[in-house]
């Protein structure tokens, strides 16, 4: 099996501060990996490295068999949660379409005449992506009028529409209610399994993902641990990462509760920059 993502002895510095170091990461193709950790641990920084938007300070990185950024057209990326307010009068189906050809020069008009065949193919791909996420009933409405869960499904369709080999989803569950968190996690797992798409999903809370992820990468205290949930989200591993006593409790219904976790300062919290 080939590796979709490989980091060796990687380290990143931002503004003179080392965000994380000594990170080794190997994600085989077709695996569903959750990236966990407290605010400011460098989760989004890691995604920026994989997308080639940020250079490593030390170590090597390979993404889909090339340098980071070399194969971005084969990656479906969903940036940290963007909420479209009620005034956003662009239909969901047009948003998805922008994921397919929004970066190309030209008019955002439905092509006519001799471009008919290409335009029809594009429309079919958009429709297919919308059906894969089950957004058919509301894709024709302005995206600003859709609920948070509906918007998130449409954005996943947007990331899927060019048939990527890998999905990079930055906190797709953030701001959703619990049934919607589980539904979106199940949807992402379904895409991963049925099409063999590698998925890297950044999350705050591991619990909605427990039944679906293959492995987790936990970033904390400037270091990372990777493995199955039951090996990584443990008192020992997390205490080692934080360098402070952490306790992981398991509730009777199987949920994990992390106690004693110090929140990192919000120094470079990307959510503050983006909004």
């Amino acid at each position, binding site marked *: 099996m080939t590796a979709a993502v490989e980091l060796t002895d990687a380290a990143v510095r931002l503004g003179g501060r080392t965000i994380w170091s000594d990170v080794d990461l190997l994600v085989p193709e077709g695996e569903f990996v959750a990236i966990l950790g407290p605010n400011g641990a460098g989760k989004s920084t890691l995604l920026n490295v994989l*997308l080639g*938007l940020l250079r490593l300070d030390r170590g090597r990185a390979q993404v889909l068999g090339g340098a980071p950024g070399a194969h*971005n057209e084969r990656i479906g*990326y*969903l*940036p*940290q949660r963007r909420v479209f307010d009620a005034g*956003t*009068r*662009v*239909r969901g189906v*047009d*948003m998805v379409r*922008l*994921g397919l*050809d*929004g*970066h*190309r*020069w*030209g*008019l*955002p*008009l*439905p092509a006519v005449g001799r471009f008919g065949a290409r335009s029809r193919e594009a429309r079919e791909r958009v429709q297919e992506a919308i059906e894969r996420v*089950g*957004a058919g*009933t*509301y894709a024709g409405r*302005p995206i600003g009028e859709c*609920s948070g*869960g*509906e918007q998130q499904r449409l954005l996943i369709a*947007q990331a899927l529409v060019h048939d990527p080999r890998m999905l990079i989803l930055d906190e797709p569950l953030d701001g959703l209610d*619990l*049934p919607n*968190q*589980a*539904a979106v996690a*199940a*949807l992402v*797992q*379904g895409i991963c399994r049925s099409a063999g798409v590698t998925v890297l999903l950044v999350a*705050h*809370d591991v*619990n*909605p993902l*427990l*039944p679906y992820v293959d492995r987790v990468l936990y970033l904390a205290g400037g270091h990372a641990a990777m493995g199955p949930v039951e090996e990584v989200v443990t008192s020992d591993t997390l205490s080692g990462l934080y360098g402070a006593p952490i306790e992981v409790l398991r509730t009777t*219904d*199987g*949920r994990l*509760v*992390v*106690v*004693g*976790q110090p*929140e990192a300062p919000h120094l470079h919290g990307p959510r503050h*920059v*983006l909004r």
Partner: protein
Amino acid sequence: MNPHLTFNLVSDVHQLLAYQFMVNALQAAGIVAVTAAVVGWFMVVRAETFAGHTLSMMSFPGAAAAALAGLPLAWGYFAFCGVGALVIAGSSSRRGRPRSLGRQSAVVGMVGAGALAVGYLLLSLYGGVLESLETLLFGSIFGVTRGEVLTLAIVGVCAIAFLVVVGRPLLFASVDRSLAAAGGVPVGLLSAGFLFVLGLAVAATAQITGVLLVFALLLAPAAIARELTPRIGLGLALSVLLGLVIAWVGLGLSYFTNDPAGFFVTSIALALFAAARLARGGLAGGLRGRGAAGGRHGGGLHGLDAAGGRPDAHHGHAASLPHPAGGH
């Protein structure tokens, strides 16, 4: 023969086209209406209405400077609106940082205040009142020459050609800047380029409607179209159609009544906008009623839950703490 409005449309149009000055006016208004409708549609999508308003104020020092230098007023309009757009673009974006509407609106406001102050100074240097101050503020559509029509046509074609080339990535960057940037769209360059084209469109429009009534042709058609449809192609087409109707009907009414064109153009725009708001309000009310009856929100979601096979063990989320934050 004084023109008078009849119920015979053919005769009315015949009367409208009887004089060359009126033909010029209708052509100029048509060109400006189409340009402003297309540029205005993007302005509304990008939420840069305030920038558009401020750029229209740049026409005032532009006209005063041109008068002072003894140049055609139109040159002053284009030069000052274009430079104003570049100033706004340059100072409201910072390298590597996303666009911030808050920072942009502060810059835009200061540019507007500066424009009016400079205009006032230039006016007093000019030595008294610009004889066309009222024209500057409220437009002078009936005095348009052939040469001016040609200038407007060239500017209009350039503005629309620019948008034809960059329209799609510009829309992408407008609705979803971070994703567009990740996809390789030069978002900073596009946003500066659009502001410049907006400046040109404003300068062209201000020559027809005057500085104060620019929004009748720049904002109203696009805003009405977006009330009526969220579709992109249809919205742009509607915007252009509405712009032409507002401009030509307004001019026609002014011609037949001898009252100012700016008043009619703006009143028609306002009336159509109010009607569109009311129509959409009624429509949305009807949809909500239907949605409540059919349970449109719940259906899709639970359907997906079932398909995803969510294990029952995890139904207990709602009762538990979301995420532990700093226990000690």
